[in-house]
């Protein structure tokens, strides 16, 4: 089996504000192997985004955050050597966001932002070369007139175009791990589907590993190789996509899937909050143990 590019083991996270301490992750474990597409599904506030932020070593140093447990990204410990992770941001580990238009600085041209992205990790690059590479990257995400897109400001392009730009930026430096946090959920459904398919094609052909954070069960089913279901800071079920969808075992997953067909667009249904059974322990499908664990 390939080495994991992301390993999370028994990760706890709490936010402290004044005397109040809220624990948002209660010891989650997950991993993403090289070239694998793994989804993390859960309702709003369940702790998906904070997990991605921890993997980028963006949260650990902030005041009032207490993170415990192991997060290893491409062989580096994100808690003990955050500087190592910081140095990999933008080229070895990259990210795609919910709303591409607000993720691009409104007062800079796409080309200026792209140039900066290409220089991530201190790579030396002449402006001309950067421009050439940016154009090539935009052509790859099927933007019709790359030169013009580079000279535009984000507000001059449509949301779908901006999402293509974002995907191009995310993949331009050939990352080993891509964190996609509900990519494009701010866009309308058809555009979202189009850009997701584009992203899927590109990461599959390049063998980029993806941690795909989502609300959307039907998208997850189409996109992911493996799925973790997270509920209130705990992973409740983990299995290969076909296992999980054909044979959901945890009460929470069952409830999700039972309710899903009634929903348009595949978003998560509202389930009775805190149904007791949802707190049941983790259920792992065959052959899906965390690395270093023995399958029960």
């Amino acid at each position, binding site marked *: 089996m390939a080495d994991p590019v992301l390993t999370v083991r028994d990760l706890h996270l709490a936010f402290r504000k004044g005397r109040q301490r809220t624990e948002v992750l209660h010891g989650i474990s997950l991993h993403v192997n090289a070239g694998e597409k793994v989804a993390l599904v859960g309702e709003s506030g369940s702790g998906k985004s904070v997990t991605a932020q921890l993997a*980028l070593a*963006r949260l650990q140093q902030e*005041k009032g955050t207490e993170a415990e447990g192991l997060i290893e990204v491409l062989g580096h410990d994100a808690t003990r050597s955050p500087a190592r992770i*910081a*140095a*990999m*941001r*933008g*080229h070895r580990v*990259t*990210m795609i*966001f*919910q*709303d591409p238009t*607000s*993720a*691009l*600085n*409104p*007062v*800079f041209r796409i080309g200026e932002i792209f140039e*900066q*992205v290409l220089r*991530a*990790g201190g790579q030396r690059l002449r402006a001309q070369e950067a421009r050439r590479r940016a154009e090539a990257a935009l052509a790859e995400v099927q933007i019709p007139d790359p030169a013009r897109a580079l000279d535009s*400001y984000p*507000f*001059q392009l449509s949301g779908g175009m901006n999402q293509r730009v974002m995907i191009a*930026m995310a993949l331009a430096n050939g990352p080993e791990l891509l964190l996609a946090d509900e990519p494009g959920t701010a866009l309308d459904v058809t555009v979202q589907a189009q850009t997701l398919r584009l992203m899927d094609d590109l990461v599959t052909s390049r063998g980029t590993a993806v941690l795909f954070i989502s609300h959307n069960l039907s998208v997850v089913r189409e996109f992911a190789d493996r799925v973790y279901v997270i509920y209130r800071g705990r992973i409740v079920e983990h299995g290969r996509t076909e296992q999980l969808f054909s044979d959901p075992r945890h009460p929470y997953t069952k409830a999700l899937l039972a309710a899903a067909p009634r929903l348009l667009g595949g978003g998560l249904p509202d389930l009775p909050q805190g149904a007791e059974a949802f707190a049941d322990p983790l259920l792992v499908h065959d052959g899906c143990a965390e690395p270093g664990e023995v399958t029960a």
Partner: protein
Amino acid sequence: MSPILRLLIHRLALSLLVLAGVSILIFFVARVVPGDPARIALGPNAGAEAVEALREERHLNDPLIVQYGWFLRDLAGGDLGTSLYTRRPVLQDIAAYLPATLELVFIAGLMMVLVGLPLGRLAARHQRRGPDHLARFLSVLAVCTPAFVWGVILQLLLAYVWPIFPLEGRLSTGVAPPPDITGLYTVDALLTGQFGTMLNALYHLILPATALALSGIGQSARLTRSSMIETYRKPYIEMARAYGFKEGRIARRYAFRPALIPTLTVLGLDFAAMLANAFLVERVFVWPGLSRYGVEVILRKDLDAIVGVVLVIAAMFLITNLVVDLIVSIINPRLRLAEKRGK
């Protein structure tokens, strides 16, 4: 037509309209205030005929509306009338006193931008840590204390107790003013290669300009800080960090430029307000600027001069705003490209 040019023309037209309004207002207000300008100008010992003759000469016996007609006719010929106090054309007086004020205000404005913005940026970057607390404390102190009080404090400390800087005036005694080109001593001295004179003028500018600038520096630091902090929360800054943009570069460019847009407009107003504050600072530092002239003509009810001074100050306000609008529209592509978006 480019959107910037259109904006410029639009603002210019608006400015002229405002200026016309201000001129009407001040023209009538100055005239209905009690007191006979001719009597004040000639002194208590002048004879009644002499006063009457002066009133007649200045059309002061005509109805107000007719007087305004005379004013407009002169204005059309580029004439703001004659001061009863100095007995020289008002324009000539203003040309003599304004540059000293402008020089002071420019240097103060420069300080406001060059010190205030980086200070606010620093505070935002180290939010709620040492540098931030210090910067905020200094800003509040600077904002709360009026400029002329700063003037007295600075003068006392840095010119009197420790005589590092000159106490007053534009140049040391014995230093001849540079040839009059713009009226700004530093610029004129530089243009004619008199570097000694230039340094001397700059040396004299430091204390009064600092006194004038301090509240602006505090204000701009506070504004920049809060605007930067808001910008730091934007998704595009999260993106920048996720993509490994250098924190320093984010502070200097990537977050700074969008944060500057809301800040600049207010800074423009602060800058213009310095013109008014300069009056008191000039008093403290015996600065031969427009203030001395302005106060004098108001006390003497020197009608033409009052209108002239007010118009010049209003014009400076409007020009400042125009320049700020231009800068903002250059920084903010949404404004600059507003047209293209619709297409």
